[in-house]
């Protein structure tokens, strides 16, 4: 479902260049992206989600050529088909857990209406062990609880792709394992593709494949 060919991307005023000749990730595959810091792992996630458009090469997602899509098409693609999980959770402090999870429905009009979604929120939260936190605000939650809610937000729109950037980076060892288990379970349950950037090599065993950026990194030095 994800096909990357001859991808080249370089940030302006930077010597760093991302170079991926060929990458394919199948539907339902759980892939871990590893590599040294600054190797372009997060950049890849941004390119795969259409946040960044590479100047050369092609990126295809579920049959869509991202290069040919307009900004609004890309936004709609992200909101409808991709879920994001961040290292620092990125929950909105002024929204309750309930509202945080439903955020995607409020920020893009291509999403269907909110009716019926309340039930889905409750189901997700109960499933993730935070069913009693719906009315709470992020400042009242532990890191582990925050990440579960972030995952709920990522999954609320039943995405076909979940991009998780260091989802366990701010968690204690017990929660790291639990969170990763949750991600795997949801991926299996929904047959959604999971791409996770991680520095935690101890957690790699559960993934279907490892994408090592050491192979792709090309640092042009003058």
């Amino acid at each position, binding site marked *: 479902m994800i096909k990357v060919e001859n991808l080249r991307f370089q940030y302006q005023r930077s010597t760093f260049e991302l170079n991926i000749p060929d990458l394919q990730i199948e539907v339902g595959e759980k892939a871990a992206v590893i590599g040294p810091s600054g190797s372009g792992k997060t950049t890849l996630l941004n390119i795969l*989600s259409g*946040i960044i458009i590479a100047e050369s090469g092609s990126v295809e997602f579920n049959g869509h050529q991202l290069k040919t899509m307009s*900004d*609004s098409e890309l*936004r*709609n693609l*992200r*909101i*409808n088909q*991709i879920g*994001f999980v*961040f290292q620092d959770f*990125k929950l*909105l*402090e*002024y*929204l309750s857990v309930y*509202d945080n999870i439903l*955020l*995607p*429905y*409020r*920020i*893009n*009009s291509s999403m269907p209406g909110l009716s019926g979604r309340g039930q889905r929120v409750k189901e997700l939260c109960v499933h993730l062990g935070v069913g009693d936190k719906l009315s709470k*605000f992020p400042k009242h939650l532990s890191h582990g609880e925050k990440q579960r809610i972030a995952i709920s*937000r990522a999954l609320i729109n039943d995405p076909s792709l979940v991009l998780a950037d260091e989802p366990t980076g701010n968690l204690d060892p017990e929660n790291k394992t639990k969170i990763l288990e949750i991600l795997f379970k949801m991926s299996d349950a929904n047959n959604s593709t999971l791409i996770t950037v991680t520095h935690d090599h101890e957690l790699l065993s559960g993934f279907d494949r490892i994408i090592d950026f050491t192979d792709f990194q090309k640092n042009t030095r003058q």
Partner: protein
Amino acid sequence: MKDSLYLAYRYLSYNRVRTLVLTFSVAIIIYLPLGLKKLISESEDQMLSRANSTPLIAGKKGSPTDLVINTLYFQQEKIETLTMEFASVLDGTGFGYAIPVLSSYKARGYPIVGTSLDYFEFRDLGLESGRLFGVVGECVIGSNVARRLDVQPGDSLISSPESFFDFAGVYPLKMDIVGVMEQSNTPDDDAVFVDIKTTWIIMGLGHGHQDLAQVYDPTLVMERSDSSVTAGAKLFMYNQISDDNMESFHFHGDTKDYPITSIIFVPNNQKSSTLLRGRIEAGELENQVVVPTLVVNNLLQSIFRLKQIFNSVFVIVGLAVILIFGLVIALSLRLRKDELYTMFTIGSGKRKIAQIIGMELVLLIVTSALISGILYYITGFFINEFINAFII
């Protein structure tokens, strides 16, 4: 739009203190020039209306402003008195009729206004309850007096003992309230009206006491002969007029010589007004006749100049507030950069994000406008206080 509004509302209500500070700052800066404009403009209207409805005021020669303020607003600044005889003189001209006014005492902080019944017809004042005063010792009160003191017909008021008149003495008189006037939204609402003769009694120019022909107590009667009795200072003067002692009340001397503070003269027509003024200006040495509208206009001119100064100040302060407001918003957006990028990442467009921020501003401004609207509305209830505190 609904979702943007919701998110904006959530943000503002979560950051309560910041929202309140911004809202009230903007509300105040919107309200201040408008509120002051309303205060001044309605004060002007009220004062001019009061002045326009009073054709001529006669009084002792002196400050026309003090004379007009005393007569129209019952501000009891020290003004010279004239005699009741001048009212007869004005009546005798045939140019209209005179309404004497004596405003120099207070009852529980409210001015006692001695006048004739013509005053009520002239001002078109109606009764809310009770009746107009019939005899000395009775009073009718303005609607505000009744409400604030919680009194009604059947109750009584005692005149305050202080006075600036240097007469024989001031007698606190217990006055019976017989009526309450309808609200008129004029200074009449804050006054206690009595017949002018009652005010003379308070001044000590009239009094009631036991019939000295029947008194034989040597401590009360200093000297007695067939034709005269000299009473001592110990003789008790009645401090309330009732059916039992009414007969004993009397005035010493000729009431024509008694003092009043001013006369409202109601001319038959404009020509009569002009003729009267001409006659008085030419021939009268001790008294004056003024046109209240002209006096009040002069007074308001100085207020108008102050208003312009205030407006300039408000513009500067307003600009400063807007700049600070802008700075606060800009800083807030910088702090929220991460949050806004998250929304973008998840799938929100820049326009939607701008809409959410825009909604926050709209909510702030609308709430500020509402608050300033309420303050603006409430301002209308304080016109009289403003006039009393800052104009007269």
